[in-house]
């Protein structure tokens, strides 16, 4: 198996993932990644591990779930099942061939991305302007301004809603039951 490309430290941060940034912005370390040539940032401390898709090819299981096409695989890590979300489909971006998987720290979700740009410290996260009223309010914690670019800072909990987790858990359970039944028959 290919070694992990990067394993992030369990850095302590004053912003818990999922918490809306307050008025006072403060610096934080982010991982910058690309999906379909669009740059995103995610708080480094919300990423447990970054691996190549090749290294996980044998460990991934398909999941049948036509209602949620952005999730087509699960991976088992440390006794937990992670649902693999295709970030391109999640953000309605053109189809690409993702090469990396971000395994999130506090959620049973992993995210397929094209490539990592770098880790960087951002001076703070700007709140998303109120004019944005669509799904992006769930997708992003806010916006970062780095190297003359506005970069959306993704909200890790936004990749899968609790309802979507329930849906996937049911699909995963059904798949397990089918596997067990076919093993008994064999």
């Amino acid at each position: 198996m290919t070694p992990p490309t990067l394993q992030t430290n369990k850095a302590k941060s004053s912003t818990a993932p999922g918490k809306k940034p307050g008025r006072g912005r403060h610096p934080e370390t982010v991982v910058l990644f690309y999906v379909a040539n669009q740059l995103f940032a995610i708080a480094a401390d919300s990423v447990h591990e970054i691996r190549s898709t090749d290294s996980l090819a044998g460990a991934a299981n398909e999941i049948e779930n036509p209602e949620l096409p952005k999730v087509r695989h699960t991976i088992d890590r440390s006794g937990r099942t992670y649902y693999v979300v295709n970030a391109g489909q999640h953000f309605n971006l053109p189809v690409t061939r993702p090469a990396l998987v971000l395994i999130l720290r506090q959620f049973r979700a992993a995210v397929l991305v094209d490539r990592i740009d770098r880790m960087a410290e951002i001076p703070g996260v700007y709140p998303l302007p109120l004019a944005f009223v669509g799904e992006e309010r769930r997708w992003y914690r806010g916006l970062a301004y780095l190297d003359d670019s506005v970069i959306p800072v993704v909200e890790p909990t936004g990749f899968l809603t609790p309802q979507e987790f329930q849906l996937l858990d049911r699909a995963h359970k059904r798949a397990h039951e089918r596997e067990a039944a076919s093993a008994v028959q064999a």
Partner: protein
Amino acid sequence: MSSIAHIAENATENSFVLLKIGHRRVALPAILVAELAPPVRLHTFPHTTPMLAGAIVRRGRVIPVIDTEPVLGGKSPFSHRFYLIARRRIGQTTELGAITVNGECELASGEMQPPAMDRPAFVAGTLAVGDESLDVLNLDAFSVANSQEARL
């Protein structure tokens, strides 16, 4: 650029900034105008809100850019796009928003007349300037609800 800021500072409720969006001349209450910004970079990122083109950064703020094209029509070439930044009411609060203009702005005074019944929500009224009757824009109404409305 500074002249617009000066205009806004001295604006009364009968002052209007006349501007050109695409090929159309419209008016905006001068009291709402914050700045005419140069053609800075438009930053885009995935979102699902209709009628928003992206955001610009101006004076340390991230300002959403309203895409007026679906309703006002006309597309200014990128090289000629300036941003008129104005205050918008969103829910209980106000926020700055920008619209792309071709950079030609002038100040006019007059009394806004109520819009005709059939005018879309983003027309707050009409303003007579010389022989012309210009629509006065209501930027608050450039939102999801109006994205399907008929063109002006």
